[in-house]
């Protein structure tokens, strides 16, 4: 058995997939691993991330399976689960060998690897959508909008295009608290990422704007008033809006 050990990033995993094909491995007996996990009777190969190879794989995936399925693969790779690399690898093998055609990569859900990759991707894209819903900006001094999120999956890069499209004339930043990633969008210009950022201090340094507390209070009041008390249903509310999101939402009590 061959075990490719690669970096935990989409580029790293795509490079490993490239190498597996380049070296003509038997795909049923090859594993892409993101950890130092040990297998019996295995040969280990370290894969250095190679941007050129990764881009080739990305292009192939997009061309063969279409934009939509390629996006699903990318979402699956934002997951924190360690078996994502293997699931995506086997899905790609399945798709290329079966010549499934554009938009049909995830058709065969009866196959375990395909189903796993599909489930991971769905989970991440669902979280991305939830973040579009539940993310809350606060206005800092100097007309800057700032939001803190704590997503399970590494979806900040998928979230930014949405907000950049929505608020092109705003200065805003989104901080991923779980990963120390900061995304910045200066008004009228493209957005970019900063790694290992310490932005919570940044937010405190700026301080909230005068109007901010007032609008938070107004919205909190609005949310209270819009509820019909004869229909009270906290369980339904919790199903639709899980508790883990509420720490960063202005209308809930846990918000700081």
């Amino acid at each position, binding site marked *: 058995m061959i075990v490719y050990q690669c970096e935990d990033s989409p580029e790293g995993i795509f490079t490993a997939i490239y190498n597996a094909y380049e070296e003509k491995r038997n795909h049923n007996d090859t594993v892409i691993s993101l950890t130092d996990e040990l297998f019996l009777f295995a040969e280990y190969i370290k894969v250095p991330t190679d941007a050129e190879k990764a881009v080739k794989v990305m292009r192939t995936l997009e061309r063969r399976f279409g934009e939509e399925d390629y996006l699903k693969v990318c979402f699956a790779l934002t997951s924190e689960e360690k078996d994502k690399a293997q699931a995506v690898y086997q899905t790609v093998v399945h798709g290329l060998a079966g010549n499934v055609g554009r938009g049909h990569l995830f058709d065969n859900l009866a196959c375990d690897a395909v*189903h796993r990759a599909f489930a991971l991707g769905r989970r991440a894209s669902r979280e991305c959508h939830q973040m579009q819903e539940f993310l809350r900006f606060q206005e800092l001094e100097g007309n800057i909008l700032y939001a803190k999120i704590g997503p399970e999956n590494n979806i900040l890069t998928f979230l930014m295009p949405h907000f950049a499209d929505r608020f092109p004339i705003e200065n805003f930043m989104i901080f991923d608290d779980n990963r120390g990633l900061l995304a910045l969008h200066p008004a009228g210009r493209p957005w970019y990422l900063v790694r290992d950022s310490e932005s919570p201090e940044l937010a405190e340094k700026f301080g909230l704007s005068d109007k901010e507390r007032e609008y938070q209070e107004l919205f909190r009041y609005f949310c209270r008033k819009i509820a019909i008390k004869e229909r009270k249903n906290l369980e339904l509310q919790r199903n*639709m809006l899980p508790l883990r999101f509420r720490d960063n939402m202005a209308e809930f009590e846990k918000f700081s």
Partner: protein
Amino acid sequence: MEFLATGQEMSLQEKLGILTDAAKYDVACTSSGVERKGNGNSIGNCIKSGICHSFSSDGRCISLLKILFTNECIYDCKYCQNRCSNDVPRATFTPEEVCTLTMEFYRRNYIEGLFLSSGIVKNPTFTMELIYRTIWLLRNQYRFNGYIHVKAIPGADGELIRHMGYLVDRMSVNLELPTAEGLKNLAPNKHRKNILTPMRQIQNEIHSNRNDLVIYRNAPRFVGGGQATQMIIGATPENDYQILNVAESLYRKFELKRVFYSAFVNVNEDAGLPSPPGGPPLLREHRLYQADWLLRFYGFRAEELLDETRPFFNVMLDPKEDWAVRHLEYFPVEINRAPYEELLRIPGVGVKSAKRIVAARRSANLAFADLKKLGVVMKRAVYFITCNGRMMYPIKLEEDYIVRNLTTDKDRIRFGSDGMTYKQMSLFDDGNFTMPVNPQEKLQTAIGQL
């Protein structure tokens, strides 16, 4: 002018409170149906699927800033808390206040847009003008590019409604009550004809606008998100069959995007109104929504689900189960062969899972274990399907037997006895709850530390 003077003394928060309170019984809080990219120099875009930004303590979504422009009203509808004979605090926004609130909430990602309705001041046309002025200001001066839903006020000038349609994404005219007779009893100032006229007008405008769009790609869109309506359930004695028929003809003849049902909440203690003992008829509302989905996405017709002899929905079974147990001649359905339309009619199979079945069976022969992965709700579907000619358990295809199993937990077939289990799908799981073995544990096993 008196109310304007008091309006100025009131703080923005008080006004927001009063006018939200007054708008909360309106149900149409959706932001779906329009895909519009940002234009680079103003705020806002629209997403096809719609975005719910929060959920209130009744579990309903908060997608739009749902407010009335004013709760002053010259009408006296018995079910409405804003009727002129009620002594409630009254307030009126200024257009600027509505715009500022919308913009500031939108920037903070609290809301997806604005839902503006209003009580009737002076006359319908005057009220519509007030709303129009506000929306115009929001679109042109505040340059808001997000989602806007307004109520078209029955009886308002047609020209005004036409202009309004080019500024907003969705318009709705409230049907209020399912039948003309009910309307006459409870809303003496409103007439069925007045309600249907603007509805028809909006439908016609949407049609002609669609033709314009074919020729001029950048022509302004008229009510891009389509029109909706809502009716109150349980205030008048109509049965479910009548209501469903009304909804069906609205979809067919008026091409509505959505019909909303609102369980009647008795706020006025009026002698002409029923006071339901168990609170608002929420289950009935739920069943109507289920049936509504069957009409729109599953190819059912109203007369298939109900008829004159059984005019109400079954309390214990959902409408699809109910239909299935009465039509056992169609079952069991073979998963690996049945056409899409037949798959859709199986209880426990939805639009998505039916599509996945059709896609998946091209490359593999599906077994029961695979169906769970595809999202089929096995505890409902198991009575109605076969895989490769076999049912999962020996099941009698008999109405009583299946109904008993679907409705009681006690007599249920024991799932899991052969290693197969079912579980309820919820929005936030992948159907994968078992903890994976992590590498550290594997290592420990390998070197014998466990």
